């Protein structure tokens, strides 16, 4: 029996007991998804989109599917420690399952519904059906796994014209308690026409624990909707993080997502943005900072289908130790997507001879009236700048930290939520700036 079939076997054994309350359509989706994985297996390096990210370390761990009630040692203090208070509603998920006692659901404006996937599944599962209507394995095996196993996650519905001012914070904390768990949170965000909200996803875990987060977040923006999204991936460095952010945008909608990758042994953050309504705009950016033996993979697919849409991508990586970074950005401009304005840019700073980065910006254009640019750069610390700082008395390590932080600072500055920016500043600076006398401001 191969590792792959062993994993499918373990998980499919668990499946019937867990999901006996599923409506018939969902049971069918789950079964089809598992069958798809069983038939197609997991991606290998021969797959274009997985060329630089080997899954062997993940597939060799005997994960158990996380169930509700695991991780009961998680306390409110632990949440405070990993998730900065953004003032708005805060939904806490432990091993992928919503925990009401640790969450805070502020009063929300009429027309805004912030709830859990499990609650919606119990009360009105038909509302979720469209999110499972894609072909099994449309994305890849892990997304299919999420189809099969997802029990909980966030459910956010914004009625037409609704604005939620305070950021909605989704905190995913893993506590596998010794035996490796795979959690499969599924979050759904539906922004009806003209609605607006800011959504922050924080992923964290207990230091040193081995677990796997296999998350899918789906965002559907109707006409004129505006969603600002942030994601902080600060999992245990022994853990694995596989995520798909799937975005579908209507006419003149605006979506932005900023990602900060800090944790995990292997982390893959995949974004798929479908610009299907004319005049839609998407802004994707991120920083990834692998060190030690970490691998951070950013795979992005922006699909320009409608006319006059805009997309921007800026990803910056700092690679240290034996860290490995991947930027795999693909822009597709379909026939008829005239007036497309798309660009992508990837910049990398390599600090160690053993670090590695694979950068692969790709444009695929099938129409004429477009403005597309892309670029990639890989460099090292500027020795001349280092000497300049040292010649002014700034010690070597501090000077290095200053220059590294300067490289990513513009990305941190783009975070518009003050408490979140302060947290990221501290986390990022703490990684590179040594010594406590250096106050960054």
């Amino acid at each position, binding site marked *: 029996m191969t590792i792959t079939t062993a994993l499918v076997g373990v998980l499919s054994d668990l499946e019937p007991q867990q999901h006996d309350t599923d409506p018939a359509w969902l049971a069918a989706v789950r079964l089809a998804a598992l069958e798809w994985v069983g038939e197609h297996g997991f991606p290998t390096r021969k797959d274009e989109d997985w060329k630089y990210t080997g899954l062997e370390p993940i597939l060799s761990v005997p994960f158990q599917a996380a169930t509700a009630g695991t991780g009961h040692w998680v306390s409110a203090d632990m949440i405070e420690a990993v998730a900065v208070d953004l003032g708005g509603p805060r939904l806490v998920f432990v091993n992928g399952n919503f925990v009401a006692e640790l969450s805070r659901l502020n009063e929300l404006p009429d027309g805004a519904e912030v709830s859990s996937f499990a609650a919606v599944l119990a009360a009105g599962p038909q509302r979720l059906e469209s999110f499972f209507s894609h072909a099994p394995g449309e994305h890849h095996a892990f997304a299919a796994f999420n189809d099969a196993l997802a029990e909980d996650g966030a459910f956010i519905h914004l009625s037409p014209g609704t604005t939620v001012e305070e950021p909605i914070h989704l905190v995913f904390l893993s506590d596998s308690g010794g035996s490796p768990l795979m959690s499969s949170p599924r979050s759904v965000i539906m922004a009806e026409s003209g609605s607006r909200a800011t959504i922050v996803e924080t992923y964290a875990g207990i230091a040193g624990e081995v677990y796997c987060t296999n998350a899918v977040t789906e965002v559907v923006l109707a006409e004129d909707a505006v969603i600002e999204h942030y994601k902080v991936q600060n999992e245990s460095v022994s853990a694995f993080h596989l995520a798909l952010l799937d975005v579908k945008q209507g006419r003149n909608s605006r979506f932005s997502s900023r990602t900060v990758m800090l944790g995990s042994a292997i982390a893959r953050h995949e974004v798929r943005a479908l610009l299907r309504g004319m005049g839609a705009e998407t802004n994707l950016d991120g920083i990834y900072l692998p060190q030690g033996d970490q691998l951070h993979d950013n795979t992005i697919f922006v699909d320009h289908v409608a006319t006059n849409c805009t997309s921007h991508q800026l990803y910056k990586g700092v690679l240290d130790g034996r860290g490995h970074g991947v930027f795999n950005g693909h822009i597709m401009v379909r026939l008829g997507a005239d007036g497309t304005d798309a660009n992508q840019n990837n910049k990398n700073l390599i600090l160690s001879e053993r670090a590695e980065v694979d950068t692969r910006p790709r444009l695929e254009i099938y129409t004429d009236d477009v403005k597309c640019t892309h670029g990639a750069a890989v460099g090292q610390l500027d020795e001349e700048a280092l000497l*300049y700082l040292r*010649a*002014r008395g*700034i010690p*070597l390590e501090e000077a290095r930290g*200053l220059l590294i932080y300067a490289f990513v600072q513009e990305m941190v500055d783009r975070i518009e939520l003050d408490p979140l920016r302060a947290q990221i500043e501290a986390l990022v600076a703490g990684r590179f700036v040594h010594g406590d006398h250096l106050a960054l401001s």
Partner: protein
Amino acid sequence: MLKIENLHASIEDKKILRGVNLELKAGEVHAIMGPNGSGKSTLASVLIGREGYTVTGSVSFQGQDLLALSPEDRAAAGVFLAFQHPVEIPGVGNMYFMRTALNSLRRQRGQEELDPMDFLALAQERMKLVEMDQSFMSRSVNEGFSGGEKKRNEILQMAILEPTFAVLDETDSGLDIDALRVVANGVNALRSEGRSMLVITHHQRLLDYIVPDQVHVMVAGQIARSGGKDLAIELEENGYAGLGQQENADRLPVGSTR
């Protein structure tokens, strides 16, 4: 204050300094002139500890072996270089940079660090010396600065960091006459009994503004001639021709290990 003896420096087997001897006393300003490629900027680089040079000889600074120190330790000891080509550092604010530098020096000297407010007050006072306004402080270090602004920013750093020995490496290059006057006024305001300066320049013009106690002419990696400030005028009239005929390159000092 500073004593350079038999200083040799080579880079990738190319000999650039070939036995420089020079002594500056406290409060003195010396100028070094010389043709392109004579080793003037290499001397500056070796004094601040730029990597990549093979160096022999000795440099004693206030009794310390300067060559044994890292660049940051040299700065802490009181050495400063106004760079010929100040480096642009995107993402690092000018004000933040200078405060970090000053506090690094103060820390290494066992002095209390300045908080941002106290530093701001100090910076504002020193900015007047080089006629800079505060908008420069909120920009990234040297980024998008004109040639003249970069040089003024160097002198501002000197004014804030208060070194005991400063090397000015072609601080006048690329400056128009107004900018030259501003920079020179700033430098003159910083002259004091306890502070020595080594002014590297191609042009006698600068020395009309910053009047040196001594002028040295560097040719082929050695000091070919030294004299008073009139030497600069003589060079301006006659050029460097004639000075190289001493063929210093082949005259090895006693005890040279070259």
